[in-house]
């Protein structure tokens, strides 16, 4: 085997090692990304437990006719109640 051949062989080997290392790094990154995604999904599954137990899809609920208006009305009532409580506290000097 000539020196040139040996050199080419070494270069190919080095390239192969470099690619393997890169692949390993990407695999590790994939595991990390998947782990993170899994934990986010699992956390949300934990949070929505009661909604799912009662088969409540809030997006579907809010798409129903009158839902947005109902929410606006609740917010309006809540604003009035808060204002009344605030006024009461002021009058009581708190």
């Amino acid at each position, binding site marked *: 085997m000539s020196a040139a051949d040996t050199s080419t062989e070494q270069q190919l080997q080095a390239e192969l090692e470099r690619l393997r290392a890169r692949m390993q790094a990407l*695999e590790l990154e994939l595991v990390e990304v998947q782990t993170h995604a*899994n934990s986010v999904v*699992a956390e949300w599954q934990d*949070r929505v437990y009661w909604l*799912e137990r009662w088969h409540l899809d809030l997006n579907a609920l809010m798409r129903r006719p009158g839902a947005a208006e109902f929410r606006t009305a609740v917010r309006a009532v809540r604003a009035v109640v808060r204002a009344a409580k605030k006024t009461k506290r002021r009058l009581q000097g708190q």
Partner: protein
Amino acid sequence: MITVSVVIPVKDGERYLQELLDALATEGVDETLVIDSGSRDRSLEIARAAGVELIEIAPEDFGHGRTRNLGAEHTSGDLICFLTQDATPCPGWLDAFREAFTLADHIGAAYGPHLPRADTSPMIERELTEFFAGFEADPPRPGTQAVARAAVQHSGDPHFMSNVNACYARSCWEEIRFREVAYSEDQAFGADMLAAGWSKVYHPGAAVLHAHDYGAVEFMRRYFDEYRGLRVSSGHVEPFAPISASREVAAAVAADRRWLAQRDIGGAELAQWTARSAVHHGGRRVFSALGSRSERLPAPLRRRISLEGRDGVEATVISTPTDPAQAVPALPAGKHIAKMLPHDDYEPITRIWREGSAPLLDPVPGMSEREHLRLALVIPPFSRGSGGHNTLFQIFSRLERRGHACSVWLADYHNQMRELWPGVIYHDINEFFAPIKAPVYKGFDEWQGADVAIATGWQTVHPTLALNDCRARAYLVNDHEPEFFSTSTERVIARDTYSHDLHCIAASPWLRDLLIERYGASADAFQLGVDQAVYQPLPVERRTDTVVYYARHTTTRRAVPIGLMALTELHRRMPEVRIVLFGAENPLHAAFPYEHLGVLSPAQLPALYAQATVGLCLSLTNFSLMPKEMLACGLPCVELAGVSAESIFGEHGPLELAPLDPVRIADALERLLTDRVLWEHRSREGVEFVASHTWEHATDEVEAGLRHALREREVTAGVR
């Protein structure tokens, strides 16, 4: 150009015949044939004057199917339209039918709506309109308004056809032909053609003006005849159900009233139509039910009720062989059953048998040694107390804690858990089995790929084999599941699961050896762990007279009848011994007195084991966790010899083994109850033996098995 022939059976049809023939001339059909069966009005004269072809037959030769077949034979068009003598085509009728046959491949027939004439009663008008609207395409197809609503119907769709206004491809008619039934030959044709693989089209543009606006009595007699025919053509029997029929009639009358109100009809006219409507719908229900059962009525009564004066009882096929020696028993008309399921119950299995497993990703050198893997656990449906799932999640939760990226996938193709959403399943796994942080998915729509996809039961193997983007597949085998079933489909499928290219990780050396020897599988083994923090000797005074028996009779591999026989024998010998049964909701019938504890929680079991003298737990297949848990609590236990226990404990291990024989099992129980030295020895040995059987150790073994699955792929691909 596709040619069109029109066939019109006629008898005393002068009222609309001229109008009909004029409309056909306007539409430009290629050929019109009138078949007259004994008209005594001007029908023949009108037909001759119009210059159409005319065939005259004797009235007794008329048959709805037979006469139409005759008409088809005497015409030559590529399409054959059938109209009744009172159905007048509307403008665009012929173009619509021609268009219908271009909407899909293999269209055999088409039909169009019947529009009400001006003098039609509101009941008929509403029903006709709503009835035909029900056939329209949903969602609409692209195109003009009529095409948009045209619907192509295939096998499994309604087989409705109506020869009041229908068009057939000659090739389809030649293959199917009308049955020679007295009535409803069109419905029979519809069923036959769909069953033969043809499709049909409902085209709203192919409309005719038509209404059978009979008087109330005539209308009922007409329905009597209709349902006699329907019984013959499709086997349909209209139910006699007074309460539900009353409800349906009331609903129909209310619908008629709404229809009338929309047309600004009120006051006395509305009241009058309401009464007519009640008679109309009520009478129809009664007479259609009677027509379905006409064979039970006396012939003279049948003739009186029939609008056509028929008193015979029709068989499905009127023509009979002339040679009695060749007589073949008439078959009943097959009842068409529409598609009921979105897919077959075993669809994932069929898919694997048809297409094979999904290809695996190319192996990557060193993947089996990587510290953290992406693991996907495919599980079958479960309920609280499932031992197999407990094993899975005890191990899986520990794999997760070791840093592997884990996810859980529920394969539930029998929809046993359809009511539960993923968040609930996630919660239940945490509550019933072990704490996990892995997300839970129902089905595989969100499949993301994995280093190892892990099947965990016979129901999960085929769905796992169908998963793409995996580097390897493994099979956590808790038991030899074909033995759970008698000769059955389940048994065949369970056996099949071991014949695929999955690396098995079996829950005992016995099971591993069985998989290798019987199925040639590649397999490792792991030992079931015991939760040492829960199952341990407790500071409770132990009784010297108590046998506790895990009598879960719903699990047949537990051999409960044999256990009960053994306890009956023991009771005969030692009536003073206290017997306690647990593991089943309801008390069993036994030939000895006992205490029934029902199903106990994992927290209660150690307390029971701590106070008992001897435990009895039988398994006809793989060894289960329960005897290990008894031993961990210092409770000697009797198990079956010659199955799987020796592979774990050895022949002289801490268990008292007995063959599958009630007398020998009773002997073993008696030995432990009476020989204090033996009891002490077994109790001490059991605790010592099980001490090393932890879930951490089981997890080590399973993890090694998963890495083995990856390593096998590396070796096979030559990258190792």
